[in-house]
């Protein structure tokens, strides 16, 4: 119920504390059981094999802005896959080339734009990017929300 290599002790302790449940208005353990990082109750079926057509529709037809980012040391969903579909399967022209993006004069990763969709890497980060690179993540997040490059 905890993904491999993951230490979920702090979250488990905190969220299974009766006082915390009460403070955050969550149902008590006696009603819904223990909180676990990942559920063993769910029987989930993936019915959509590819979201690439949805990305095209959302960004090219409905005008949404999108940021797809990858911690470049994640092996669960590696950046190599995200780079392939963003660069070759969106049928969108490259509007700004692959280039470094910076935080405090340091290279934080690389970014390329395809119209209203940008693909960015976060250098040295894993699957949970803000865990490994909190400062860079907040900077990236703010720039995206503000519509800045």
């Amino acid at each position, binding site marked *: 119920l905890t993904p491999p290599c993951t230490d979920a002790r702090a979250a488990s302790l*905190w969220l299974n504390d009766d006082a915390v449940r009460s403070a955050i*208005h969550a149902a008590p353990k006696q009603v819904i059981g223990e909180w676990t990082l*990942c559920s063993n109750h769910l029987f989930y079926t993936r019915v959509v094999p590819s979201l690439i057509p949805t990305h095209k529709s959302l960004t090219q037809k409905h005008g*949404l802005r999108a940021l797809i*980012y990858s911690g470049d040391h994640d092996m669960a969903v590696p950046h190599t896959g995200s780079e392939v579909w963003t660069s070759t399967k969106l049928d969108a022209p490259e509007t700004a080339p692959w280039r470094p993006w910076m935080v405090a004069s340091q290279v934080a990763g690389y970014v390329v734009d395809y119209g209203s969709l940008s693909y960015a890497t976060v250098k040295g980060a894993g699957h949970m990017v803000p865990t490994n690179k909190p400062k860079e993540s907040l900077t990236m997040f703010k720039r995206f929300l503000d519509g800045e490059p």
Partner: protein
Amino acid sequence: KQNDLIDAVPGFDGELPSKHYGGYIPVGTSGKRLYYYFVEAETDPSEAPVVLWLNGGPGCSSFDGFVYEHGPFNFRLADTKAGQGVKLTLNSYAWNKVANMLFLDSPAGVGLSYSEAGPRDYRTDDLVTAADAEEFLRKWFTRYTQFQSSRFFISGESYAGMYVPNLARAVVEGNEDGAEPYINIEGYLIGNAVTDTEVDGNALPLFAAGKSLISQAQYDTLWKRCDGGNFWNASAGCECDELLDDLVDAVSALNVYDVLEPCYLGPNYDDGEEDQDDEGEGWAKVQGAAKKKKQARLNSLQKALKSHGRKWPVVGSALPRVGERVH
């Protein structure tokens, strides 16, 4: 809304720097109740956008993001008189520094979300999950009317690569169909996003070669034997499949979520449960195949040992395992 206002949180001493809310919103007709934790922006909440955050899995709680990634607090295990407790301090890089952050446990059956109907509501899929989350959002904006005109974004990571675009589409189409209240969606962002079965399933070998986890020669052979990089649907038992097993052997002792980080509990830890990791079908398939092959080798060895009157050694202590070899 006022009933959901959080005055204080155990483990944190001091005044909360912005308003926090937590509670349930019912969706559907069978008693599903989705839990949310909302943290107002520390800058002017009325000017800041609202950002929904979803962790992936499928089936993982968005408290992963709240506790370990970009939530308002840093969580630290601490020894107390009563045993081990958790100490909270403010996170200097929390995303609610610049946005109103809405953490949602979705679908029902995940984290603190549940259904009064019990397990029959925990059988779900991509589209039901998106529909429930859209209903949640419209009800949430009805409860928090002051944010109805705020710019709105959906964010997440991993299997939320499925959740986020599906939900964005549901919101856009709902808006077009006149659903109330209108949600002012402007965009979305996703980290390490599960997106496409084929593309995601083909990504690992190039990653492994690019990070020098396998040699370039090994990658070149894989490429040739796997029909020019068609790794994701290799037939069981074919040469490509065997080579993929070797690839998995080479990387399986690493922390799959960050190859630079140590692996908590390590590759030799076995809790007796099957792996619950579904991050990317291609990777899961490759891992599953390697596991079966390894088990077959062990079974064969066990048979040989028994035929020689030897006692079966305890797996994990007497036999070398993949991780030890790599270390």
